[in-house]
């Protein structure tokens, strides 16, 4: 148990293992995204009520789902960072935040664009969009808090505490916003009626959700690798790595 964690905390080990995972994860991600996008755009049947505009769902729903899950990944890294004091967990936490913020932003933007043909307005205070907006600010808060600290280790710990507070709060926020929405607007229009969705639409949607999870994982590992390089830049193993790569390059040139 302990040796495993110790190893997991070792930067060169993590750097190389992330590299070997990425070698097959990135191609899989790209293929899944391409297949899902073509399926959703061209092959899935149009919705009987919304027509073709519902095809935005194949981006909107996966982005929203993975953005929310990403917060929990980040908080898990935060818990590990607080309990085992692992630097690598801080790096994971710091890398999750911009990815999550980006996906949340994509969810918000696609929701807004979807709203225009559906309701004739760019912004609707729908329950999901409102929750996404709050989630976006939670991610922004994490990034802002991290950047405010001079000491990076303490920044990681502070963000870990904040992300754990967030995990307790997010379900409450989502439930409150749902309740608030049902109170102020009769639930006549919904983005998706999940229960009645036909298999021909559900299959590409599920594929896209899997693709976005892979996207999150790939991007997280890539970010972590660059973050490791930045923090460990003065260590011997990074120097060796850099020199080895440069040597390869010059050998190829000759």
């Amino acid at each position, binding site marked *: 148990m302990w040796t495993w964690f110790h190893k997991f905390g070792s930067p060169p080990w993590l750097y190389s293992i992330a590299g070997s995972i990425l070698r097959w994860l990135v191609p899989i991600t790209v293929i899944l995204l391409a297949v899902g996008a073509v399926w959703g755009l061209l092959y899935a049947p149009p919705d009987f009520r919304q027509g073709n505009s519902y095809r935005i769902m194949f981006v909107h729903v996966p982005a929203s789902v993975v953005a929310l899950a990403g917060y929990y990944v980040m908080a898990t890294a935060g818990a590990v960072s607080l309990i085992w004091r692992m630097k690598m967990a801080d790096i994971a936490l710091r890398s999750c935040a911009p990815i999550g913020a980006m996906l949340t932003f994509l969810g918000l933007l696609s929701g807004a664009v979807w709203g225009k043909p559906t309701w004739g307005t760019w912004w609707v205070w729908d329950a999901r969009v409102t929750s996404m907006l709050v989630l976006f600010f939670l991610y922004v808060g994490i990034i802002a808090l991290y950047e405010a600290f*001079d000491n990076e*280790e303490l920044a990681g710990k502070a963000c870990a505490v904040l992300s754990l507070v967030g995990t307790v709060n997010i379900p409450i926020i989502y439930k409150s916003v749902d309740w608030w929405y049902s109170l102020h607007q009769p639930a006549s229009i919904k983005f998706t009626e999940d229960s009645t969705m036909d298999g021909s639409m559900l299959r590409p949607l599920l594929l896209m959700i899997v693709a976005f999870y892979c996207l999150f994982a790939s991007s997280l590992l890539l970010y972590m690798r660059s973050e490791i390089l930045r923090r460990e830049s003065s260590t011997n193993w990074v120097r060796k790595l850099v020199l080895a790569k440069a040597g390869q390059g010059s050998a190829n040139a000759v």
Partner: protein
Amino acid sequence: MTAAAHAEPLLKVHGLELERGGRVLLSDFSLEIYPGEVMMLEGENGSGKTSLLRTLAGLARYGYSGGLQCNADSLLYLGHKAGVKTLLTPRENLRWYCSVQNLPLAGLDAALQSVELTGYEDIPCHNLSAGQQRRVNLARLYLSEAPLWLLDEPFTAIDRAGVKRLADVIAARAAAGGAVVLTSHQPLPSDYPVRRVSIARQERS
């Protein structure tokens, strides 16, 4: 110190590596402090004396690796900050400190007398001079029952007589079975029983 060597160390540091702001201040630093000892940390500015003291006190809990074992059930830390609320009087300040540290209030007047604040007990601290405010903070030494004291520059901003008295309290604490770790810019008397530990920066080879 032969008698003390048989006792448990109050503080044991083993293979400590201290890092602040991405800079390694100490590496593979080991230290044991036994009851009855006064230890002075020596090193130039920026060598990490304050960081080490804060780590020993448990105030800085991140940025170090290695073994750190404290056998004292309570400790007293005197840092750079005043540690005094200027809106409160000296008596109110110390009473709060006693409650926080769970100390009896009986010694409060004597402590204030020892730092020559008799007559100023009930004047809000913002009306006192900087030196007097400093002495309010130092009065904690006369109240404390903690076996381990960690004092960062205790001798600054006090007069020569004050230094003498302070040195006596510190020696008395050590004689009573406590241990004191301190840093100081002022030279201590040559006959003062103090163990000097240099934490001069090890050059990386």
